[in-house]
């Protein structure tokens, strides 16, 4: 313990005696550690962002698609009955069709294209939307096939910039639809490519829509499932879709959002691993630079080594001294590198906000890992110079000038 304390003391005295060289030798380590920390923080940030977005959407989203069977030349059909059947499953919270239903929408003064969506009252909760003004559709309205609608705030502002949209009417599908509510999209859902269609959106009771429109094409079914259910959702849903009819076999597929997210996170993991490896190469280069400086230092301090050997230092003592020195050096480098890396990770999204839309996530574990690897690196790259130093013969080392 005393030897270690003394070794640290010796290391610090020698490092301070050669400030410029010490600084230059750790520069590579600083940059290497900084780049590793930056990449770890940025990829962790991106990952946390994906997880946050997924949590906002709910992890329980499934989609049912119809498939084309090349042997029978048939494709599956999706209809309202399928939705009713799926809702019978105990773990299904709710289900909606995905329509691609653009219509000309008229008010008394304007005509615009809008996207019409068939819903039921559970739609808002499932899609993480809030009714901000007015109210949701009621079961009675569904029962009576009432021609009521809820509109997005954007659409309401476009049609009724001056007056209150509630109680006003819109005309489409040959009917008059009374506006009973306004809703807002959650921030997390506002992805760039979806914004325009979602913003010009009209929600109507699905049953009403099916009665007023003869040709409504269900592109796919969106099924929200209780996230606590642990059974095989896909299989049970497929069984419902195919029913007892062997002709329907193979005409449907189920897409699992969680599975997709897991795959995406897996790809993210691989990418971040590759980037970390690339950053580690710069760390390696830093280590080699340090080894070079340590070798020079050993050559310059041959006489010092000789003096130490003369007054009783063993080979082991010299070896340990140089190992401690290189570990302290790279430890200091690692310490500075962590700060540089953390600052870079914070600065990048500010400086290049178009490229880095997601902030970093700084984890103390990264700092710990970086610190440990820096010190270890000092030991590894300091080993060769230290062995060289310890093998010098005392008599020859003393003769050197």
């Amino acid at each position: 313990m005393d030897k270690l304390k003394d070794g640290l003391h010796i290391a610090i005295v020698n490092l301070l005696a050669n400030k410029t060289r010490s600084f230059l030798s750790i520069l590579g380590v600083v940059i290497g550690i900084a780049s590793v920390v930056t990449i770890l923080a940025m990829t962790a940030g991106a990952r946390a962002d994906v997880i946050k977005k997924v949590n906002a959407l709910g992890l329980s989203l499934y989609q049912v698609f119809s498939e084309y069977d090349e042997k029978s030349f048939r494709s599956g059909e999706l209809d309202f009955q399928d939705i009713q059947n799926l809702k019978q499953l105990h773990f299904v919270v709710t289900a909606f069709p995905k329509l691609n239903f653009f219509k000309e929408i008229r008010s008394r003064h304007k005509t615009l294209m809008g996207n019409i969506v068939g819903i039921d009252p559970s739609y808002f909760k499932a899609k993480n939307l809030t009714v901000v003004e007015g109210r949701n559709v009621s079961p009675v309205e569904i029962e009576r096939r009432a021609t009521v609608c809820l509109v997005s705030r954007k659409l309401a502002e476009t049609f009724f910039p001056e007056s209150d949209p509630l109680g006003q009417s819109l005309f489409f599908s040959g009917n008059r639809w009374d506006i009973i509510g306004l809703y807002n999209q959650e921030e997390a859902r506002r992805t760039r490519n979806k914004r325009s269609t979602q913003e010009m959106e009209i929600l109507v009771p699905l049953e009403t829509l099916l009665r007023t429109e003869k040709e409504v094409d269900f592109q796919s079914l969106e099924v929200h499932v209780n996230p606590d259910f642990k059974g095989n959702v896909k299989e049970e849903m497929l069984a419902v879709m195919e029913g007892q009819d062997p002709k329907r076999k193979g005409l449907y597929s189920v897409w699992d959002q969680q599975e997709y997210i897991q795959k995406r996170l897996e790809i993210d993991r691989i990418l971040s691993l590759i980037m970390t490896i690339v950053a580690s190469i710069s760390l390696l280069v830093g280590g080699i630079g340090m080894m070079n400086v340590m070798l020079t230092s050993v050559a310059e301090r041959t006489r010092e080594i000789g003096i130490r050997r003369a007054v009783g230092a063993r080979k082991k003592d010299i070896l340990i001294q140089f190992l401690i020195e290189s570990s302290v050096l790279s430890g200091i480098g690692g310490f500075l590198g962590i700060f540089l890396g953390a600052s870079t990770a914070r600065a990048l999204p500010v400086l290049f906000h178009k490229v880095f839309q997601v902030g970093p996530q700084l984890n103390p574990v990264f700092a710990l890992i970086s610190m440990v690897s820096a010190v270890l690196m000092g030991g590894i790259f300091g080993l060769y110079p230290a062995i060289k130093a310890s093998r010098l013969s005392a008599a020859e080392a003393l003769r050197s000038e």
Partner: protein
Amino acid sequence: MFLYELAQVSKEYSLGDRAVPVLKNIDLQIKKGEFVSIVGPSGSGKSTLMQLLGCLDIPSSGVLRIGEHDVLALSDDQLASLRCRTIGFVFQSFHLLPSYDAVSNVSLASTYRGLPQGRERALQLLKDLGLGHRLHHKPNTLSGGEKQRVAIARAMINNPEVLLADEPTGSLDQQNGQMILDLLEQFHRQGKTIILVTHDSHIAARAHRLIEIVDGQIQTDHG
């Protein structure tokens, strides 16, 4: 009881594929508490002999005993331990560590021995040698005489059996040289074995036994 016993000790260095003999068949005994000087012209092998006596190097052949230890049978670590406990060195060019102050230079040797209170003893030794006002000066701010006194303090800190001084006055003026020689005499009176290597016969005359080396062999041994 001999402190040093050398029998047929030879040392040669290899220069390329050629072996150059530096010491040839040296027979020598030195008793505990002797004050010996080794003289000879430069290149005579006296410095090599001192390195052997100081365990900085080992003989190519022959037997070298220090106390009960056979040097050729010792491991490198055991030799280091022997240097640390038994031998104190004083060199012509001081050999102080430039980045250490006087106290740290002196206590360095006690660190390797693993003795406690190294700094306290270093402070006391330096004060005894009249360097109480130079304790925290680095070597480049000390005069030659002061540097050599720091080096002597370092040599004495582990209370060695023998003090090996290789041209200790070589870099000093007359007055400082005298002071260093007085110190060596003082340690001799306290019972230390002193071995003084020099090319200067006036300085060598301060010793009680004079060994002359010429061409790697002992020419005369008066004592």
